[in-house]
């Protein structure tokens, strides 16, 4: 461990001529590896190991601490694909993700273009938009849940003040999901705005000048200059927001706990229920892996969709 026997050996081998250099570089001993070692160790222990372990769990009827774990092969997955609650949770998760990401990016982009100029007012408005982003989701969920309480909440009070009937935002199965999506958008729109704003500010003025000389109007500038130029930023923010939305848990858990009648039950709240309420660890791990695969596939699709083509 303390000496470095590999490096001189590998470095000394010079198989001469063809293919030499690439082979020589493959295993070069670098002290950098040593400094990276603690990080790699942490990565292995806390990321790689749990991920593979959870796959192992998902192949068993796993009970924490039991002497013998019952092997069920793909049984958990078969059960999962026959479980209507799973399909419901998948539908809710996708619905939640698609609607909230589209709204977050759309509104975030609109806010970014509207607030791009550096005036004092714009800076203040930007901070206001960004503020919800830095508050913990669970806190936001609790506050909104209280505000939206039909009988003692602020929103109900305002509605009653104008003579309306209080609305059961979170107790009505038809309204619960739109309400949770609204809060999620409200929270994340500032994040999308800030990232997109940074992207927009990075677009060289010369591009706009050239386009204006060619007679482009504001809409065309937006569509043919700004949007293509910030494609990498769009890709980044879409991917981050999509992955976050697919994994949504805290907000739903605090606001509705997946209810009413599973109307807001996402894959992660279902996984939590199976794992920590029903103690069915194998089944919960299977849900986690399905979600993992979905996120991988969607991320790959997004990367392809937004691929940065140099020809542009």
């Amino acid at each position: 461990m303390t000496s470095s026997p590999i490096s001189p050996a590998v470095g000394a081998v010079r198989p001469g001529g063809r293919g030499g250099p690439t082979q020589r570089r493959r295993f070069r001993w670098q002290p950098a590896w040593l400094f990276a070692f603690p990080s790699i160790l942490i990565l292995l222990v806390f990321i790689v190991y749990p991920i593979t372990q959870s796959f192992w769990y998902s192949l068993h009827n796993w009970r924490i601490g039991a002497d013998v774990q019952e092997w069920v092969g793909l049984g958990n997955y078969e059960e999962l694909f026959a479980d209507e609650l799973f399909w419901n949770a998948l539908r809710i998760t996708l619905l939640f993700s698609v609607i909230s990401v589209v709204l977050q990016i759309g509104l975030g982009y609109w806010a970014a273009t509207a607030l791009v100029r550096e005036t004092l007012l714009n800076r203040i408005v930007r901070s206001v938009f960004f503020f919800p982003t830095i508050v913990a989701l669970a806190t936001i969920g609790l506050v909104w849940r209280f505000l939206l309480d039909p009988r003692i909440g602020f929103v109900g009070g305002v509605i009653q003040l104008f003579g309306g009937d209080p609305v059961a935002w979170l107790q009505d199965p038809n309204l619960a999901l739109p309400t949770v999506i609204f809060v999620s958008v409200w929270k994340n729109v500032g994040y999308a705005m800030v990232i997109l704003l940074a992207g927009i500010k990075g677009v060289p003025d010369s591009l706009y000048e050239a386009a204006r000389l060619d007679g482009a109007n504001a809409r065309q500038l937006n569509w043919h200059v700004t949007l293509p130029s910030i494609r990498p930023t769009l890709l980044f923010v879409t991917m981050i927001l999509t992955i976050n939305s697919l994994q949504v848990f805290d907000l739903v858990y605090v606001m509705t706990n997946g209810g009413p009648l599973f109307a807001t039950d996402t894959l992660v709240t279902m996984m939590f229920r199976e794992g920590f309420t029903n103690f069915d660890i194998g089944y919960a791990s299977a849900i986690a892996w399905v979600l993992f695969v979905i996120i991988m596939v969607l991320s790959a699709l997004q990367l392809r969709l937004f691929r940065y083509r140099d020809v542009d």
Partner: protein
Amino acid sequence: MRKIASAIAAASVVAIALSGCGAATPDNNGPVELTLWTGFTGGDRGAYEGLIETFNETHDDIQVTMEVQPWDTIAQKLPSAWATGQGPDLATPNFDPNIVAKYLDTKSLLALDDVGDTSKLAPAAIEAFTVDGSLYAVPANIATLQLYYNKTLFEAAGIDAPPATVEEFKADAAALTGGGAVGLSIADHETIQMWPILQWLDGGDIVDAKGCSVLDSAENVAGLESWVELVESGAAPVGLTGAESDSLFSAGKAAMQLNGPWAAAGYAEAGIDFGVASVPTGVNGPVTLGSTVPLAISAGTDHPAEAQEFLEWWTGADAQRQFALASGFPPVRTDLAEDPELGANEVVAAFAAALPSARLYLPGVTGATQVDTEAYVPFIGEITRGTDVAKAAAAAGDKINAITGCEG
């Protein structure tokens, strides 16, 4: 030179790694230290802390530290901690007594053979915690649900006494609704279940002794239909969590609520002029829901004798008298029923009076937790939102039977 640098670097990495592993040597002369995890984060927390304080003051050789954390956190941490022989010596694994079976699956619980005379402890709890002839937990508390009523709203509606029968109960709930208030605030999830009481009042039930659903029995369907009618008329709100139901009563916007002793202190603090009455008598006599929190010992504890001594003390007469007076909970012992000091305390007396008629929720039912989360909670949610009771009962019954393995 580079070689030396890497050697030094490697040596320091190893040194850093090793320095984190200093093992503490146990002190054999001091008192035995026990840790206890509980989920008592509510208004009753102080009463439990008082118990621990008294125990530590009176026991030089054993010192107990209680760590209070949310029930969710315990559910996430305790199973793996105990199954691997780590974690606290003692814990209340959940507020649901049915949890004992889950921990027994993983052989995480110590069989209690030295906790004194358990014949004086609440029989329903002891029965729930006994598996194959061995006791695996003692009741950390026992609670019954009773009828809280808002005296101001009763007066305003011209009703001078809380309802005594199920018919009066329904009539009062309707009469007390209006002017921004509801007659009955009832939660249907994230709390101790209250709907079973309404079912029992009309002679219905959830499962029979074999674990087969009886939700679709005639009494049940008829009874639930009458409650659903009240819900639809606005006398009882739909889809409340336990906390939301409590807020409604503390805000003076609910005339009646079924709740446990833990709620009393909060309502008094909120300035509500309330009384606690017995749950109205059902068609088959008095009935209410009882609940008990199991207090168990880890199979991996290093101090089984001391931990059991603690449980014996906790369920003893002195500790239970202190706890009842501080919390309003009835004592877990049956031989304190005649205790004059406890009898003089209105809240304790009210909740203790219901002990003989208290029934547990899904006791001994296989997969009780899953029956609750996947069948019963959705069932109540559906019928209070307009699904036909008979139809929903049949569907929920199928789900329950699939979980419990009822042969039908």
